[in-house]
């Protein structure tokens, strides 16, 4: 069964880690006000573009290939998610369980071979 008292330290750790990193970000801002290091001006606050004014909106359209990588990642991540319970339950499912997974993997290897053949895994 699940021992919830083992998860409570994680929650406390999350709170402490967040507090610590927030302090690291916000304390220097306050300190900069106090020491007088905080002197913003329009040039300093403009985005970096090698000394030029920005040419265009940086959040532009991107190559569709990034989506393809993300979709392929979701599929293989799900495949791995199915492998996790299989890996620890092989002692009870035995050979039938093993063969089941091999069929499942074969289905995905077909997809992988298709992606390879189509050049979806190439990055030009």
């Amino acid at each position: 069964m699940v021992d919830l008292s083992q998860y409570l330290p994680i929650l406390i750790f999350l709170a402490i880690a967040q507090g610590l990193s927030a302090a690291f970000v916000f304390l220097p801002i306050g300190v900069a006000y106090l020491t007088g290091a905080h002197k913003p001006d329009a040039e300093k606050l403009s985005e970096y573009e090698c000394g030029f004014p920005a040419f265009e909106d940086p959040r532009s359209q991107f190559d569709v290939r990034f989506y393809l990588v993300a979709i392929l990642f979701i599929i293989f991540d799900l495949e791995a998610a199915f492998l996790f319970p299989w890996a620890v339950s092989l002692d009870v499912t035995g050979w039938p369980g093993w063969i089941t997974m091999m069929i499942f993997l074969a289905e995905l290897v077909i997809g992988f071979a298709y992606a390879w053949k189509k050049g979806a895994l190439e990055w030009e």
Partner: protein
Amino acid sequence: MIQVLAFYLFATLVIASAVFVIMSRNPVHSVLWLIVAFFNAAGLMVLVGAEFIAMLLVIVYVGAVAVLFLFVVMMLDIDFAELRAGFIRNFPLGIAIALVLVAELVLGIGAERAGALKLGTPDGTAAPLMDRSNIEAIGALLYSRYLFLFESAGIILLVAMIGAIVLTHRERSDTRRQNISKQVKRRPDEATINVKPEVGKGVQL
């Protein structure tokens, strides 16, 4: 006590972030609030003892699906003002979907009140492998009793993969690809020649 507090903390955050998902003006903020909602849902899963589902929720939804969402909303050049103009037009549809979801919720609560779901045993007296961690219990059922469903999940994934490739893959002909085996196989005598040109004459290549 702490369990109850944690439940209300996670539950409040799930609902609050879900509200922010639909209220945010910026779609990127919406996706980020969605991630917060997933994260707190994982916390709720841990509280009911489904630690494997909780981790899967983070690995698959936060780690993979939300990354794709972020890619889409960050990089697609969608005119969101135009999308929002369709709000009134699609309002009846939205109400219909909301009603379906409410009906599902009512059904779910009703089913839960009728007794806990006891998978794995036909008479429902006891489920096997309850003394082991729930990841092993899931595995023991999924790869023996429910293997047909599992294999069909594999087929669905295959269809999804092929569909994604068909829809998004564009062959580009204007790029030169690296052929590593060809590069490695190349020998010096194929690539270079020694010539001794006469004085005042060029080299014929």
